[in-house]
């Protein structure tokens, strides 16, 4: 062989593997409007279904009259709970061990609840039918405040389980109480706090908001009565789990159900759960014999599908006079709405809220969470975060700030004093987690230097002086945040959803000519899996990323997996991808050894080929090996080159970061101007820096929205007051500030390629950075805590209460 081998670097570049900013292969179709979303699916004879929804937050349903609706031309059927009951489909299990009405069964429990499903030729006729369904309601007293749910005389919301003293997560103390969940050592924590030099105490509320993906939820169900096969295209973040659940509740054998997630226009947790619309489109297809589509509009989506957050976190944090934290106590009142439909691993009814010790070495801690029913939409999903990690990060980052005030210490310094040190990893937290890796001090130093922290504080002090002199009405706020996430759920030994272990999977087939297809158990909703997972494989098996097709979301072809949410795709399915790639390589090595007539151990891997050790002219490229696997009879080696890996991670991964926001605040108008946002992320090994940057920008923008205006609000009657995009804040380019990003790289020691997941970090770290900036601006006037979202009137109210309008 005398052909010249291209240099190593050249061959690596050709792969477009790990660490390269490969352009997203998905974007060609997305930017040309050629994506294929659920609403793009149009089948022969397809009908359209939509809901009659409750105008009331709590009411008895006295009667439903459907005759007038059925008389409307084009209306085929009106399905009510009474029709679903014989099929036992009028209620469905939630992911949190509760049950939820598919259609109103005797009463409604939140505004926008699904009451009846009208099936018609098209959307127009369906809507005419909806208006013609006559529902007689009798209004009942409403609970919107979770703190009033257990008072004497409070209405009982869930009559179906009023007498059940035991729920899915242990004892219930009241009919409106769902569970109590505890973590850590109560006695020890209370003792530490009662003896501490300094204790700061605060109620930290993380308000109710909504993931609000651009594309709303929807499904197209098609029951083929000839072969008995049900196909459902839908906005599913976990298609395999949906298949299993659909089989269990419908009685249709699992092999006769095919679930397909086509392109998904953003999920952010909103598309993890199972919604009445999915069930109703399936039932309607079975009833009518035609395919049935259901697509929400934006108002339906905001009002009825899964919300996020709504945690009231009462906290106490104690420290020595010198600022060494000694204990953390938290009691959370969790408003779950009318049904407990949180999407958490089964054993974690409050998700991973017990990561609330954050980035700090806190020796003693205790957390308890009470889940409460109210007359609001169900949900409690992980909106661009791992289960309840945003709540935890916001809580601890606020508590650090209030403790710093109590101590009279700069909060940057307080953080530094209490960070878990690099040499403490793997670190066992007081609330039971083993942090895999981290280097917080380095990240923090880098962040403080990047923004010139000392100078900023000086400028802030000068501004304050000018303010007191009446020279300006604008204050400066500096928002600090150092977060630690816990992502990549997770080890099957403690993480499952409805009994399904939270492993994930990848299956690879190498084609004879040396290109490949890989299928995964996850599903991209815009994260760019087809780009990044091909890069992981390229580096593992030496085939250019361009030559690897990625496929997800079709349960008939993809291997079983638990889907995409909680930053689990890279930590779990990404690991499975690397592991499957390594299996391919192992077989390839045997084939190469045969072809080169050497022993397996005489070969070494070199980017895209196996080379005979000490004899670099003798090699077989992956392409050659692929062809050989199909055309040579190799003794003791099966033909073909395929592998599948199901990966059960040994631990979670713990991405972290240091974020700083500088904000100008006008005390008279409550308006804000964000001057600087610095975001340093450490997500371990960086697969595609450009995608990371994009994810950080997107996540920061959602964080900005949540902190500064986005909320799902209810009035006392339980009416949603922010049900349209006029009132529900989604920032445009105009409101979005510039972002400055940076990174450190601390690989996960247990992940095959050291990657940790990044898509959710900016939301987790961003919210406290923005919120802390607002708090920080008013700190010197005595503000300790004020609830988000920090929209104009709430900021104005802070200033007003502090007497800043009487100067």
């Amino acid at each position: 062989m005398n052909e010249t081998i291209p240099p190593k670097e050249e061959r690596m570049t050709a792969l477009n593997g790990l660490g390269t900013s490969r352009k997203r292969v998905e974007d060609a179709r997305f930017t040309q409007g050629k994506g294929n979303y659920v609403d793009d699916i149009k089948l022969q004879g397809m009908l359209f279904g939509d809901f009659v929804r409750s105008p009331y937050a709590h009411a008895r349903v006295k009667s439903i009259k459907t005759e007038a609706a059925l008389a409307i031309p084009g209306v085929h059927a009106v399905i009510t709970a009474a029709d679903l009951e014989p099929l036992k489909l009028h209620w469905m299990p939630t992911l949190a061990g509760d049950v939820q009405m598919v259609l109103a069964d005797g009463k409604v429990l939140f505004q926008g609840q699904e009451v009846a499903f009208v099936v018609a030729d098209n959307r127009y006729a369906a809507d005419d039918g909806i208006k013609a369904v006559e529902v007689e309601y009798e209004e009942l007293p409403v609970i919107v405040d979770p703190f009033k749910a257990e008072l004497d005389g409070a209405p009982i919301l869930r009559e179906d389980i009023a007498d059940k003293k035991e729920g899915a997560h242990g004892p219930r103390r009241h009919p409106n109480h769902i569970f109590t969940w505890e973590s850590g050592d109560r006695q020890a924590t209370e003792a530490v706090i009662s003896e501490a030099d300094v204790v700061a105490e605060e109620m930290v509320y993380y308000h109710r908001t909504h993931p609000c993906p651009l594309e709303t939820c929807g499904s197209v169900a098609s029951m083929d009565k000839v072969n008995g096969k049900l196909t459902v295209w839908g906005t599913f973040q976990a298609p395999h789990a949906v298949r299993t659940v659909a089989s269990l509740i419908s009685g249709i054998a699992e092999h006769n159900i095919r679930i397909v997630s086509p392109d998904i226009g953003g999920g952010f947790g909103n598309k993890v759960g199972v919604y009445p619309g999915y069930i109703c489109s399936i039932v309607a297809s079975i009833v009518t014999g035609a395919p049935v589509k259901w697509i929400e509009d934006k108002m339906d989506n905001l009002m009825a599908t899964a919300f996020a957050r709504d945690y009231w976190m009462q906290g106490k944090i104690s420290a020595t006079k010198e600022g060494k934290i000694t204990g953390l106590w938290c009691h959370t009142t969790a408003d779950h709405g009318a049904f407990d439909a949180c999407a958490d691993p089964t054993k974690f009814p409050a998700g991973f809220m017990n990561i609330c010790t954050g980035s700090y070495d806190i020796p003693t801690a205790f957390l308890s969470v009470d889940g409460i029913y109210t007359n609001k939409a169900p949900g409690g999903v992980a909106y661009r975060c791992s289960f309840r990690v945003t709540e935890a990060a916001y809580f601890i980052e606020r508590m650090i700030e209030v403790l710093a005030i109590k101590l009279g210490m700069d909060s940057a310094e307080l953080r530094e004093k209490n960070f878990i040190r690099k040499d403490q990893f793997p670190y066992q937290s007081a609330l039971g987690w083993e942090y895999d890796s981290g280097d917080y001090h380095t990240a923090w130093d880098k962040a403080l230097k990047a923004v010139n922290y000392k100078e900023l504080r000086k400028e802030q002090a000068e501004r304050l002086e000018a303010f007191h002199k009446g020279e300006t009405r604008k204050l400066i706020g500096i928002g600090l945040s150092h977060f630690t996430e816990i992502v990549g759920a997770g080890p099957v030994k403690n993480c499952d959803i409805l009994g399904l272990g939270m492993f994930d999977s990848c299956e690879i087939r190498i084609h004879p000519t040396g290109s490949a297809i890989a299928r995964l158990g996850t599903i991209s909703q815009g994260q760019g899996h087809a780009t990044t997972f091909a890069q992981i494989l390229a580096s593992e098996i030496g085939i250019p990323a361009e030559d690897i097709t990625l496929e997800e979301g079709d349960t008939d072809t993809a291997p079983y997996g638990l889907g995409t949410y909680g930053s689990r795709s890279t930590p779990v399915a990404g690991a499975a991808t690397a592991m499957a790639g390594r299996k391919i390589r192992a077989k390839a090595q045997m084939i190469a050894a045969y072809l080169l007539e050497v022993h397996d151990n005489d070969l070494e891997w070199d980017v895209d080929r196996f080379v005979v050790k000490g004899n670099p002219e003798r090699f077989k490229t992956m392409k050659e090996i692929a062809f050989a696997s199909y055309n040579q009879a190799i003794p003791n080696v099966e033909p073909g080159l395929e592998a599948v890996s199901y990966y059960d991670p040994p631990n979670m991964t713990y991405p972290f970061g240091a974020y700083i926001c500088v904000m100008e605040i006008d005390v008279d108008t409550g308006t804000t101007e964000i001057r600087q946002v610095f975001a340093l992320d450490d997500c371990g090994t960086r697969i595609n820096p450009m995608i990371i940057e994009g994810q950080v920008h997107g996540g920061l923008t959602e964080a900005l929205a949540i902190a500064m205006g986005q909320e799902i609000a209810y009035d006392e009657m339980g009416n949603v007051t922010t049900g349209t995009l006029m009132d529900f804040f989604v920032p445009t380019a105009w409101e979005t500030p510039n972002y400055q990003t940076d990174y450190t790289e601390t690989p996960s020691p247990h992940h095959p390629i050291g990657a940790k997941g990044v898509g959710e970090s900016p939301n987790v770290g961003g919210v406290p950075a923005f919120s802390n900036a607002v708090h920080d601006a008013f700190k010197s006037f005595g503000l300790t805590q004020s609830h988000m979202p920090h929209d104009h009137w709430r900021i104005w109210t802070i200033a007003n209460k502090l007497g800043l309008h009487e100067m």
Partner: protein
Amino acid sequence: MIPSNFEYHKPDSIDGALSILTEWGDDARVIAGGHSLIPVMKQRLTDISHLIDLGGISELKGISIENNKVSIGAMTTQHELITNTQLAKFVPLIREASLQIADPQVRYVGTIGGNVANGDPANDMPGLMQTLDASYELTGPNGVRIVKARDFYEAAYFTAREDEEILTSISFSVPNCGYAYEKQKRKIGDYATAAAGVLINMDNDTCSFASIALTNLSDTPVYCEEAVNNLVGKKVDSNAIKKAVHYCVEASDPVADTRGPVEFKKYVAGIIVQKAIENAIARV
């Protein structure tokens, strides 16, 4: 979010539109840019069985400025108000205000006529037209009549326009003085938390002319007569401005909504009016 069934008409003359309007009475409605009307139709908050599109009537379009008099056809889009160079030169107040309405997509189709005829207190143009002391030309089956913008608004969505009348054009004199339109909103595409249009002229230190109107601070636009009376003929110093601001806030009557409680809105109204007055004076 699906409208009920309706008949669609696209006449090419005002008379054509009027005859359909008269024929169908209450069941008919004209549509201009549709950016206020279509959302309420989609929510089925209004039932319209005949929709008359004014987009085919060329007489309703265009901007003319002659002898210090500005006349704007009802179907002129908000985008055209921004890009018309003559208008920008002679009445920069219009451009300043229009740029603060909604977003470019809305402004490409939203019209001045729809904005002022709608009767929504959140619309910016009604207050702006009261600032300019504009006149609306209403054409009905019985001919044409003129109503002053300052007399047009009765309550939210109730105006002096009769059901079978079409607002055909808007006219006002070139102001030739200091101007400002200030608006506080939560985000791009939002209606005002508080907004104020101001025209002011000065004779040395003395105010020789003033006009002030507020947007979204009551169930109609608020023309601030008392504030104006207290400015004109007075020496304008910080005290006089303070006093004018005080009268403006007195005249406002906002309601609490997702933009905030009443005290907040009144306070911000004061800040916004003050900014507008100061900007206008600086531009005299």
